[in-house]
């Protein structure tokens, strides 16, 4: 019983933390580019990043399987080069969580960066500061509430991810059985005691993380 609780909790946190870390870095970069740069095909980037937000997770998951499977475009290259098979590993679950939570990060952060007064950036440029310095010391600190909101939303989305994860990582006990998937299979198998315990843990976890975030944001003046 204990193993049935601890492992899903451990693997869920691991997948969600790793995915959120990647989402935070790449999402902020993409958001900055979308908010501040003009280039050909910007709309296409916007659409591609947002798409997983509107697609059913199973569709996203199916597309990832096609892409990452042994005969998929990326999966084949990876297998030929390194011999690694990605599907049905926790890393595959990270990719699924990343893809479905990226839109939340990008949307929230783009809005936050767009809300930063451009004149502040212009002042920094005239004071001799490069665009990179300005982004790190002016723009991003002023957009930090939005960035944090994006990370929290992405993390929550990753913790709750079910459809796409099931498609790419399956439900392998001791390897890829995340909380959300374990709850479903416990419920299916009539193990309501396990289902209840997992649900309570998940709800508590969400409550605590929301509470911490809210307090943190409220303590920021800007």
């Amino acid at each position, binding site marked *: 019983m204990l193993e049935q609780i601890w492992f899903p909790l451990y693997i869920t946190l691991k997948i969600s933390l790793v995915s959120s870390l990647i989402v935070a870095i790449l999402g902020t970069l993409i958001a900055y580019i979308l908010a501040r740069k003009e280039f050909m095909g910007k709309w296409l980037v916007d659409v591609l990043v947002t798409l997983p937000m509107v697609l059913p997770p199973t569709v996203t998951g199916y597309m990832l399987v096609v892409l990452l499977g042994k005969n998929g475009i990326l999966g084949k290259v990876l297998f030929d080069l390194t011999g690694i098979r990605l599907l049905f590993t926790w890393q595959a679950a990270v990719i699924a969580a990343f893809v479905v939570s990226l839109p939340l990060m990008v949307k929230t952060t783009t809005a936050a960066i767009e809300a930063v007064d451009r*004149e*502040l950036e212009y*002042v920094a440029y*005239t004071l*001799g*500061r490069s665009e990179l310095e300005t982004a790190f010391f002016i723009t991003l600190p002023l957009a930090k509430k939005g960035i944090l909101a994006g990370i929290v939303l992405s993390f929550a989305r990753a913790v709750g991810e079910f459809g796409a994860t099931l498609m790419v990582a399956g439900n392998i006990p001791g390897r890829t059985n995340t909380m959300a998937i374990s709850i479903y299979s416990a419920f299916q198998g009539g193990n309501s005691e396990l289902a209840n315990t997992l649900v309570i843990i998940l709800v508590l976890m969400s409550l605590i993380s929301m509470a911490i975030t809210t307090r943190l944001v409220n303590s920021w003046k800007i």
Partner: protein
Amino acid sequence: MGIKVDFRKRFYKNNERKKGKDPSFTVDVNFEAGNELAVLFGQSGSGKTTTLRCIAGLEKPSGGKITVNGTVYFDCHKAIDLPPQKRSLGYVFQNYALFPHMDVKKNITYGLKGMTDQEKENRMRQMLHLLHIEGLEDYYPSQLSGGQKQRVALARALAPGPDILLLDEPFSALDMIVRMKLRERIKLIQKELNIPVLFITHNPVEAFTLGDKIIVFHEGKVQQTGTPEEVFYQPKNRHVAELVGVNNIFDDAVFASHIDKDRTLFKAGELEIITRHIEIKTDKRISWGIRPENITLLNSDKDNRELYENHFSGKVISIVNKGASKLIAVRSNKERRVLISEVSNKAYEELNLFHGCNCTFSFASRDVLIFV
């Protein structure tokens, strides 16, 4: 030394550039300024801010050349376009644009590079002293008043020792007393640092009191460049005249004759207007104008003061109190033309005018402006 600007920037609606259409708006400016306070004066939308942003490198001109202190900032033909970081300039925005997450000290030292902490500290103290804001260094922008914020913004812009200072309507959000103090300060700072300062304003009083030189903008073009006196008393065309407060402008003067070597006669509708001697080649209609404070009003019944060359009888049709003076609209009996006269409160009391009363208005030939 100083700044030399000669560039064009064309603006197009959406995709019209690709279709080869004419630009919807063109900023085409050409002026020079030495180590002096030059005011860019004009209505909003006349291209003043675009000009400043092009000088700062925040916008790219379509063509031309910008040089500051011998350094070429932009040259279309030589493909030179220094980024703002490489142009040595201080830029101050109307809304201060202080970094809200940094205290005053960090704001002011943000542009200082390659200095030890002690050097930065010294430079910051110098700036605080220059702007008279000692003691504010630990405050955050949200804790400052508008005037203090603008002083910090100036200190921040000046801290790296720029070659030129650009100010975009810096005082327009401040109340009058703070604004007057800051005008004095900026004048002193310009003298002390001896660098060119370009100052944008749409306020004629600010332009007049502040500028060593005024550069008048209208619809993207420089209309006139000169001392405040030249621009205000000898506006070159009717756009400049309107901007400097010539309320009475008409477009119907036709040359009639030269009265003598000093005076010329024009006909404006049925009115005859005597001006100083003006060489004129065209017999087309041209614009003429008169400043409201140059129109003297006389009470027809009692006043025995001497009249100027141009005088007409009329009626008072409205009186607007401006505080220190009154704006009085009079309508001539002949042709029913409305002119505005500005009369000091003291003169107004002595005149004993009222709505609808008869009056005589007169103005000197030397005060009539003719825009050929």
